[in-house]
């Protein structure tokens, strides 16, 4: 046999080190040794839409702590001379010349036939916007008196990028302030629902037996009920003399109270499936306690799934708050949320005469979409060992 080989074997004189010599292995090694978190991240990163959406969400949430600085006006600062003023667009060029960001001032005349204010734009006198400037005073986080703002209206002029409402309050500033409430309510609500879901799902999957079937029935019943009428009933039950902050927390808890069944069901089914896995048996044989098995081995295993499904249910919280506030049963002024803002745009006059009052829809839709995309991406990435 041996003598039939026509060509001699090539033998490299270098010593063989599998870790270095095999170029293909290095990549594989990195893959096989990566933690599951890293694997999830790599898989998530491949979904372009989800990554972009994650940045959109980051942008919105990064705004939340600094709304006072970003908003050009205060939350309830009234400009009595500019009621229902239309949006004031930002221009860059005046008479073909570059001036930098500026606005044209406008003034109104009262139309005695239609009883509306007609705003006339004065195109001769551009007013430059000020950046990193001293604007109207505010209390940062309600604590420190400050005047520093990112953008200020021109000296003696106005800057209503999205127009004003019936009291002459700048809509853009109110949307920015509203972001704080609307975005936080989604997170707190999901926190409540997450805790409830983890508890009930965990108890059902852990104890089994009649507790399991009782919780299962409860989940089925809650899932078969239409949410909104119940939300309405529960919000109507909030005492009218509560402070707006108490109402805020009340609404958040109400939103979370009806949302947990989906999560609980996911927790239970994952617990049941994972309980049969070999690594659980191994841990049991090594003498680990049940709490340790659940906390160390089971929960980390399905946490990524839970976070994905939680992300997917944040939008329903945000939309729920919007709907409740829109109907006047949710948050009440002076608390400003996107729903409260939309409440002011709920008549047909707003749609036809002051269409800019509908601007708050845009952030609502953007945030809801972004949460959906990120949730989809997370769900696909949550199980990195499964192609």
């Amino acid at each position: 046999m041996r003598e039939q080989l026509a060509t001699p074997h090539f033998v490299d004189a270098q010593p063989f080190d599998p870790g270095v010599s095999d170029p293909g292995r290095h990549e594989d090694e990195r893959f096989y040794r990566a933690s599951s978190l890293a694997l999830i991240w790599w898989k998530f990163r491949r979904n372009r839409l989800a990554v972009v959406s994650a940045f959109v969400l980051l942008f919105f949430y990064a705004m939340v702590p600094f709304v006072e600085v970003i908003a050009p006006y205060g939350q309830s600062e009234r400009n009595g001379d500019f009621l229902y003023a239309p949006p004031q667009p930002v221009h860059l060029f005046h008479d073909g010349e570059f001036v930098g960001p500026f606005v044209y001032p406008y003034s109104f005349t009262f139309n005695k036939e239609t009883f509306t204010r007609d705003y006339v734009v004065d195109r001769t006198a551009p007013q430059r916007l000020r950046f990193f400037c001293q604007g109207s005073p505010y209390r940062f986080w309600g604590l420190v008196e400050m005047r520093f703002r990112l953008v200020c209206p021109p000296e003696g002029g106005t800057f209503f990028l999205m127009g004003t409402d019936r009291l002459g309050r700048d809509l853009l500033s109110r949307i920015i302030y509203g972001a704080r409430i609307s975005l936080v309510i989604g997170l707190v609500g999901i926190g409540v629902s997450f805790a409830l879901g983890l508890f009930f799902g965990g108890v059902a999957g852990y104890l089994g037996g009649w507790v399991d079937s009782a919780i299962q029935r409860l989940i089925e019943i809650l899932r078969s009920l239409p949410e909104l009428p119940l939300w309405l009933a529960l919000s109507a039950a909030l005492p009218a003399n509560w402070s707006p902050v108490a109402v805020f927390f009340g609404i958040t808890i109400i939103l979370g109270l009806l949302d947990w069944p989906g999560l609980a069901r996911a927790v239970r089914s994952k617990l049941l499936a994972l309980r049969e896995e070999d690594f659980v048996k191994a841990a049991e044989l090594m003498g680990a306690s049940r709490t340790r098995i659940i906390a160390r081995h089971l929960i980390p295993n399905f946490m990524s799934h839970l976070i994905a499904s939680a992300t997917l249910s944040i939008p329903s919280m945000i939309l729920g708050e919007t709907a409740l506030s829109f109907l006047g049963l949710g948050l009440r002024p002076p608390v400003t949320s996107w729903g409260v803002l939309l409440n002011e745009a709920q008549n047909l006059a707003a749609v036809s005469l002051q269409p800019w009052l509908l601007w708050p829809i845009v952030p609502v839709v953007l945030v809801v979409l972004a949460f959906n995309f990120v949730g989809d991406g997370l769900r696909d990435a949550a199980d990195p060992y499964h192609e």
Partner: protein
Amino acid sequence: MIRYLARRLATMLVTLLIISALIFIIIKLPPGDFLTNQIAELRAQGDASAAARAEFLVAQYGLDRPAWEQYLAWVGVWPGPGGDHAGLLQGNWGWSFEYDRPVREVVGDALWLTLLLNLTTVIFVHVVAIPIAIYSARRQYSIGDYVVTLFGYLGLATPSFLLALILLYYMNRWFGISIGGLYDPQFAGAPWTAEKVRSLAEHLIVPTIVIGLGGTAAMIRRMRANLLDELGKQYYVTARAKGLPPGKALLKYPFRMALNPFISDIGNLLPQLVSGSVLVSLVMSLPTVGPILLAALKAQDQYLAGFILMFVAVLTVVGMLISDILLAWLDPRIRLGGR
């Protein structure tokens, strides 16, 4: 099949019983009730005779009894203040304190219109979602597919009440359909003639689209994913290889497979649609139970609010029962015997 039906009906009744208890607890959560508030108000005004009348009503409707007794009397398994069983089970829906009329008269037509609105929406969702999903799955990654996907996401993300407002405005501007209501104003209280029915159909268009949009979007997404799963399977490839035209092959096998989760999905769809219809009715002031519910909740008109919540719950639970029966009938793989 009959045993399955019997068991399914029994669980439904138990479910409804628990739901009724839940609803009653929620209604009773706010302190006081309509009459105590009214009595306090009348006392403050010094109207002693009206206050005495209201107190008489309190006794007549047993509002001075403990809450559990009120609940049982409301359901109809406990003798009411009149000494006889007169509750939901006996077909007595209670008394509306705000309107000073029986609940049955207050809700009246609104029940039928609610039912009609929800039924048209369910039909709309299916009629629109199925063809679009088939198209979108057949031409995956085509421009049409992307448009459908985009529209689907927007439908998911836009708050329905605002869409209602905007559509309403443009429908009025472009087609001259009167704003709000389910028929033109001159038909209010008129007998049902062909004209009135036509007006009703015209006014149903916007609410149906608005309420159904979210559900349609979700359904298209799920149906498309299901169909795509099935299209990759061998039996479909075999059917195509044997010369079956694509449309026929799709409708004959994968479509039927993808339809099952679709029917069981009615269970998820219904609560969502009913929620949507309540909200949209409020915005568009449709004469359904939505606006009555909101007013009743605000005024603590307990029997009226309780009945409407119960009606809405029955609507979804019965809808789910129907979808389960349909599923059991359509899918031979579902075992009826037990777990």
